């Protein structure tokens, strides 16, 4: 059984349908990558999975429980964390407060302290500047904070929406290697990326989304060498 199962999902904004019947699965321990051009419906898909938007039809199952009608704040408690597009850190709160908000749904105070330390080990810069308002951080640092914050809920499945957006190549590498680290520590990952090459390299499985439809799927390696992906997403011909 897959950890996450999306079945024939449709999502509309008013009359405009952004996701037009997609199905995909994420297995326990996998890194699954969702790629596609601007406006393909990637963010919409993630926001629907985490309960911020309601689908017009279709089903979403997480660990054998149907979640497409569960309120967003309860979905986090099931072990599904979402690091949103554009980072969306809380700018006027400190780094530490941002991280603690990631653990809002938890009550195990001792373990939360440990996880705070773990986040500071994963991203030392966060520890050094833990009392600073997060709004003063650079884009890369904010991305680390957003990922650290998502990890504070101890997710089984972590969804990352374009973590490398607007980052320097070095910073991007750091983010991607963190994704690997998290996977090796047992977190399953659903990754949305514009940077298809970096994402597919570390993905077990990938789906290509085009204007609301899944047009292609396969293992990371299969997609990396497929003609369509190379033309459309890797800028090769």
């Amino acid at each position: 059984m897959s950890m996450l199962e999306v079945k024939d999902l449709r999502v509309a904004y008013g009359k405009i349908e952004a996701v037009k019947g997609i199905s995909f699965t994420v297995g326990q321990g996998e890194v699954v990558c969702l790629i596609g051009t601007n406006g393909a419906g990637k963010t919409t898909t993630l926001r629907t999975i985490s309960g911020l938007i309601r689908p017009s039809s279709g089903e979403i199952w997480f660990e054998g429980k149907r979640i497409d009608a569960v309120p967003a704040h309860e979905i986090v408690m099931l072990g599904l964390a979402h690091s949103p597009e554009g980072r969306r850190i809380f700018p006027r709160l400190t780094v530490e407060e941002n991280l603690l908000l990631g653990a809002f749904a938890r009550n195990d105070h001792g373990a939360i302290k440990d996880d705070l330390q773990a986040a500071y080990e994963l991203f030392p810069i966060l520890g050094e500047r833990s009392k600073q308002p997060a709004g003063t951080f650079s884009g890369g640092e904010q991305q680390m904070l957003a990922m650290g914050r998502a990890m504070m809920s101890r997710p089984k499945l972590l969804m990352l929406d374009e973590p490398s957006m607007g980052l320097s190549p070095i910073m991007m590498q750091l983010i991607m290697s963190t994704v690997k680290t998290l996977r090796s520590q047992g977190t399953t990952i659903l990754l949305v990326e514009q940077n298809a090459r970096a994402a597919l390299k570390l993905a077990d499985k990938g789906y290509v989304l085009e204007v609301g439809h899944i047009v292609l799927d396969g293992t990371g390696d299969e997609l990396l060498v497929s003609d369509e992906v190379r033309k459309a997403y890797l800028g090769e011909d």
Partner: protein
Amino acid sequence: MDLFFQQLLNGLTLGSLYALIAVGYTVVYGIVQLINFAHGEVFMIGAFGALATWTMLFKGTTAIWVLPFMIVGAIAVSVTVAVVMERVAYRPLRNAPRLAPLITAIGISVFLQEAIRLFYPGAKSAMPFPQIEFVTGAAMEWGPLTVRRSALFTIGALIMCTAALWFFINRTKLGRGMLAVSQDKDTARLMGINVDRIVAVAFALGATLAGIAGVAQGLQNNNIDFFMGFLAGLKAFTAAVLGGIGNIMGAVVGGLVLGIVEAMAVQFIPGTFGGSPWKDVWAFALLIIVLVFRPQGILGAKTVDRA
């Protein structure tokens, strides 16, 4: 000079009352961007809650120990009314155009005033508020200053509420959740925060302070009436805007500034425009001046903030 300090004290007293009510406008605005114009009535109903508690349980007693019970009674009634009002009237309108909740607020105001006027026994005219010896007894003379005991109660209440509020916002998990919701609702939901619950907490928080203010007003004025929330609410809203709507400490500062300006204007503006008939004019003139030159308010910030 003595006169100046006397008026400063009077202004601080008045301002403390405004500030206690103003927090309710600002907290709710910071969380849901809604001006709850029925908040003045939450204050009024708190005063009646205190009166009812005294009438039913302690009638005839003037000892200080009944005061905490009256405060609890006031808060219980204020909080209940505010939370029910949010649940029944405002929540269904959360995504409606802005005019809808505004009109609803006016409707709730009239409803609450009329409910008290018609159904609270004797409330068709002003009702005497219980005298509690320790806080309404003879005024004290501190050198040249005349200090009313009820003034000390009001200022003390503001100091304690402000400290408690600061602690709640900055040091508790629920307070942190409130800051998060005021900054970014969707992301707050992704953190596992129940936004509906935080909105209810914001209404309850504002109502708690309004209930305490209702008791303070009763003690100061010796009587209360169903219409007392109108002007007090308008002034407190002015105070919240003065301080920077959405900014909690701004509401406190705005309340105190407004109270002091009123007290000074009454005493020191000479001639036709001085004296108490003009104090409301000066209060609103101050609002206009601040809105023109510093539209974000004295402390600024558009969201619930600790500043």
